């Protein structure tokens, strides 16, 4: 799984530099926005091609649509409608350092992808593009699979603005 190895290569290097918390968050942001992954992901060409509404894309590939394949278990306002994108928080909001991790199927290439559903915090509700889907979502006794809680809870300003869905990598099938 070369792309996931690279996620952790970067994190190990950051760790070795003994960075301050601020730059840890910045490198977290790099990892989570997939900047380090961009050259490696075949899906990235589609990601770069995503444009404004009315671009004629089908909903399943439109990050401003609730049907976007990456949003299979999102709960909240789509940051893509709020000044951000499906993998970036709107200006002036803070990404949540804690999140929950899900898996969504991309019909475009037939793969399952691991996605990170971070919240963007510190401003009042965006109010646009509310979307709630719950594939493989589970109640809050299993917090790591739940989208009912406010993932902004650990932010210093925990009010909730919108949600992103950040591609982490391909999900390999699990077998216990």
């Amino acid at each position, binding site marked *: 799984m070369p792309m996931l190895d690279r996620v952790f290569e970067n994190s190990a290097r950051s760790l070795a530099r003994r960075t301050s918390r601020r730059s840890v968050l910045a490198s977290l942001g790099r990892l989570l926005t997939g900047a380090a992954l961009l050259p490696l992901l075949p899906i990235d060409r589609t990601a770069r091609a995503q444009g404004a509404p009315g671009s004629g894309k089908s909903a399943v590939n439109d990050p401003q649509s609730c049907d976007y394949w990456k949003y299979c278990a999102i709960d909240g306002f789509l940051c893509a409608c709020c000044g951000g994108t499906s993998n970036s928080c709107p200006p002036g909001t803070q990404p949540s350092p*804690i999140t929950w991790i899900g898996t969504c199927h991309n019909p475009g290439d037939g793969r399952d992808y691991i996605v990170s559903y971070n919240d963007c915090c510190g401003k009042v509700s965006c109010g646009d593009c509310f979307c*709630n889907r719950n594939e493989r979502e589970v109640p809050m006794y299993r*917090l790591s699979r739940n989208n009912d*809680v406010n993932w902004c809870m650990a932010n210093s300003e925990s009010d909730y603005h919108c949600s992103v869905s950040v591609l982490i990598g391909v999900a390999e099938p699990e077998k216990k």
Partner: protein
Amino acid sequence: MRDFPQGIAGLGVSMHKNLLRAALLAAMAGGPVLATPPPPLPAEHLTVAKLPPRSPHWAYVLDEAQNNEIDARVLLYDGDTYRRLGQIGAGFMPGDNLSPDGNTTVVAATYFSRGGHGTRTDVVEFNDNETLTKTGEIVILPKHAQSLAMLYDIAYSADGKFVYVPYLQPAASFGVLDPVRKSVLSEIDTAGCVLVVPSGPNRVASICESGRLLTVTLNAQGREASRASSEPFFDPDKDPVFVQGVPTDDGVAYLSFLGQVHEVDLSHAQPAFRPVWSLVGAADKGVWRPGGIQIGAIHKAQGTLFVAMHRGGDGSHKEGGSEIWVFDLKSHQRIARWPVDPRQISGTVVAVQVSQDAAPILFAATDKADLAVLDAKTGRLKHVEKQFGQTPSLVLNP
């Protein structure tokens, strides 16, 4: 009561004289001849409305105001007169509940110092249900569990001496509060188990990822005296239960995604699990499912269970009901099936609640903010309140 000053009453008198003059002129001009005009309206007094006597047909409806989440509120509604009676403020991501004597609505919420941002303060607020005024608060650790509101996200002990409020850091725990002295008595680490189902004067059950119920027993000072975990009663991988339990006569019932009913007797020191039964027959399993937020309600005396049901597959557990199914708790038989009429009710039912009196009514809130009132015996739709608040999702009954 405020009386307006004499001057304004005097103004009324001179207005009266002017009216009389105008009427006489109109009469002389050939206009309609009035008999003596009606006396002028008396001056009003500005007052504050008093609530009518508490009725079992009232509903305390929590509106999280999703588009404006710092502005949640509890709306009080009269299910007989179909009128809004008043409102209680509820901050950001609240939980609410009623005291056992019905005299208080307790609300746990977050407030930010600058409204939409700033320093976070979490409080448990006490509201008098006769005047709808806030009568006190307890400042708690700024880690109130912020989530979609649900039953048992704050609760009183059965005797009203303790209030339990869940924390999420994301580590899970709950606070034990003294509602009379307005103090925090202790924090109980639940090691990942969530929500607070009270039983008796000093037991709290939380539900765990392992499929177990954790029961913590408190001493008279509200500190932990002992704890025990049940055997697992559900499998979160195969058929998770909705975390929002349905209050029963002697405990709580957990409904599962596939329609199993797990009734738990909490009246003794340790929970006792009744045999599991199913809301759906073999043909409907996995096809018809319970779903929504406040998925079910039980009329304790009549022994009936009301559930919001929808057709759907995996991942549909938050879809509201297109039908309400009614079950007899003794026979486990479905006794009624009430489709939601889309011509009268917009959206699907995400919250159900039934009044506990002998002529019960059923409240059903939809994902389009309609609040329907039904006869809970016949299913007859009595009234639909269109756009009741913004996103009503939890209905409590006195």
